């Protein structure tokens, strides 16, 4: 397992140590399928925490253990310092499950009322929060329609709203943008960032790495029930060594001008890209300035989260791409 920095502000909301869970283990079938194999992680208050991994990595199982939906695990798991499944801790959690199914016999408004009150919130408080939340997920006009009449995207948006209706301290979102159109995705992203700004801890399971990269400040990558790496986005997207230099105008003999400096020269619109060390970078700037070329920007290239993710998964299981 690759260990990256584990620092986070504030107190710990989620704490997991050597968590193991085996499915299908019975008296007759002793082996079973190991879904979690010794997971260690901590989520601090106010973090937006991304959980990444291919299908079957154990992400959803980890969440379900934390919420008391899955039993028979070993190790240590705490939510708000309490054992998983404890009503007091679950009261502070808003959860949007993957492929969730809301009661089809209720209207959107009734779903919000039901889940808000089931979470232990006062009926009047819930009622006061329903309007603004439905507005945020753009569901105000459909609030009085039955769930069975909703499209998948509408159900997803309402699912997100119900996860927030009791003003939770921790929001767990399992594939929150699944089935949602680009405009809806953008509004979900905004909502997550809004939660972050309000100090709410957000725990996101997602396949959409771009989104995770855009909104998460701490990420865990899992595969086959174990953590491959965890850390901040910066830590998980290291510099590649390549630098992108944008010029006001690009001379035709640019490659000759930089001859002997750096590796893997490549022209790109408005500039070029080159792998350089620090001394070589200074030399390149000097040569460009000597020629009187105006430098607009110098940007060090980083790995994308997707590249890091695929690299890690391939390393864990060579030849198999997620």
């Amino acid at each position, binding site marked *: 397992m690759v260990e990256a920095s584990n620092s986070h502000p504030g107190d710990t909301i989620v704490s997991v140590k050597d968590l193991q869970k085996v499915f299908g283990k019975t008296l007759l079938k002793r082996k079973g399928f190991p879904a979690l194999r010794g997971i260690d992680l901590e989520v601090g208050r106010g973090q937006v925490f991304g959980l990444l991994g291919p299908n079957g990595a154990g992400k959803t199982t980890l969440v379900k253990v934390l919420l008391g*939906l899955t039993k028979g695990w070993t190790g240590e798991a705490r939510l708000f310092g309490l054992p998983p499944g404890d009503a007091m801790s*679950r009261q502070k959690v808003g959860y949007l499950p993957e492929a969730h199914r809301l009661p089809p016999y209720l209207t959107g408004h009734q779903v919000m009322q039901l889940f808000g009150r089931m979470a232990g919130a*006062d009926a009047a408080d819930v009622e006061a929060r329903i309007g603004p939340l439905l507005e945020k997920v753009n569901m105000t006009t459909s609030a009085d329609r039955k769930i069975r009449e909703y499209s998948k995207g509408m159900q997803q948006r309402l699912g997100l709203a119900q996860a927030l209706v009791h003003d939770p301290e921790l929001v767990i979102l399992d594939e929150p943008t699944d089935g949602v159109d680009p405009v809806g995705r953008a509004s979900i992203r905004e909502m997550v960032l809004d939660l972050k700004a309000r100090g709410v801890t957000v725990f996101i399971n997602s396949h959409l790495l771009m989104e995770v990269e855009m909104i998460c400040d701490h990420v865990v990558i899992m595969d086959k029930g174990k953590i491959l790496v965890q850390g901040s986005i910066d830590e998980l997207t290291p510099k590649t060594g390549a630098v992108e230099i944008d010029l006001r105008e690009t001379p035709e003999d640019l490659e000759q001008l930089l001859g002997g400096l750096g590796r893997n020269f490549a022209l790109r619109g408005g500039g070029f890209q080159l792998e350089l060390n620090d001394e070589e970078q200074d030399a390149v700037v000097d040569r460009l300035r000597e020629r009187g070329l105006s430098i607009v920007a110098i940007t060090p290239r980083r790995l994308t989260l997707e590249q890091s993710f695929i690299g890690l998964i391939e390393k864990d299981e060579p030849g198999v791409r997620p």
Partner: protein
Amino acid sequence: MNANILAALFQDSLQQVLDNRVFRLLVIMTICMVAPTFLIGFHQDHISMLWMWEYSYSELTATLGVPVPPDVRPDEMLIKGIQTVVIEGIAGVAGIIFCIAATAFFVPRMLEKGAADTLFSKPISRTALLVMRYFSGLLFVTVLSFALVGGMWTGFALVSGYTDTGFLWSAVTLVYLYALLHSFSVLVGTVTRSSVAAILLVLMMFMFSGCVHRGWVFKEYAQESYALEVLRIEMREEGSGELREEEEEDSTLLNFLTVLLDTLHYTLPKTGDATTITGMLREAVEGTGPALNDTEASVVFEDHPEGMTLIGSSTPDFDEPVTWVPRDPDADARQRVFLKRRGREPEEAPAPGERVRRLVASRVASAFEDGLDERADRGELLSGPSKERAMFGPNQLIAVRWEEGSESDGLHRSRFFFHFSEWLYEIDLTVPHAMMGDEAYEEWEDDFFRGLSIGTEQFRGPMQWYEDEFGWDAPWKFNAFFSIGTSLAFALFCLLLSIFRLNRYDF
């Protein structure tokens, strides 16, 4: 779980029920069954429709070709018939099956992937959620049952003027019957997570428990009959021990089947008892049991003589004459009704060569009349005696009437004779003239005898025998409390097993 959460769960249950299409269909069916009770009025001598048209019972019976028995009130007979058909037939069997089918999905749907995650992540225990789903089903049936029974009761009360509070118990027993079956539905739904499996297995269990119940009753009946037969043999013959030994040799399989039947009967919910319990509850409220019941000979008086009350039990042993006295303690104490029963075997053994002549009503009545004639000759009677015969089905009822006392303080007197099975009955009536005139006395007499039925249950089948044995204070295996208790224990066991299973699920 606080009140807020409880209210939310109740609201959820209610919404789930109201949204159910089968529930709406059943509501329409309920309205269809209740509405006629508001539109058709059953009265003592006619039926009214929509408060406008009236039909006499004679018109109706002529049209239908079905005569109304002369000794019953047709309005009561029809209303009770309708109540029985609706509650025991339509609602008690078809309705319950419908409700089971309509509510069997409550638990499996809650356990579907996606739905379960959302629900069980809330700070409510799985047990509470399952129990609320169980109560959703009960709410479903409670609303329908009370709408049906309460609606019919109100309709009959307002339009026909017929009220029997005991009928309202039918709603409770419908809910009770459903509660037993629904607990099993919840168990199957929890274990299999399949609505189809829940419906099919519950229906199978419903039928199976009915079969087990009947089988057990037949077995008990057979054992009772056999025990009586053996007792008779033992009393008559010596060496009955040989008979027992022979029987015991072949009884291993029978014993096994008996134990199996007993185990199943005592374990499964006794759904078959629900109807009997309803009847008993109705009787407890209305006091509608017969005024007097000679269970040995199936001779029943439905009503007491008007204005009179029975001294002693309504199921007497006839060691002493059964006596009715005026209900009003200030009334003339000479008003009396006696009922005597004696065996028909002659008290004196017949002379050698003479055949045994059992007592018959006509002979005893004639002898009694002769005695009265002698009294009349001596001037001891004001009028009579006169003798009259009437048929009660195949049985003959002979009445001897006379008046005695003084002109200013005379008494109406009647003595009725009939024999049935091994018994001869005499009923003696005395009413002072001051209390009733001739016509009123005749009417009073008629009213009393209208409720008489003789030997209507000559062959008491096993189920009838069981119903007679079954009661609130019967021995434990025929005891209503035992039946209810063990059935509820089964329901509780099913729910506990469901909770046990649910708490071990990984979602």
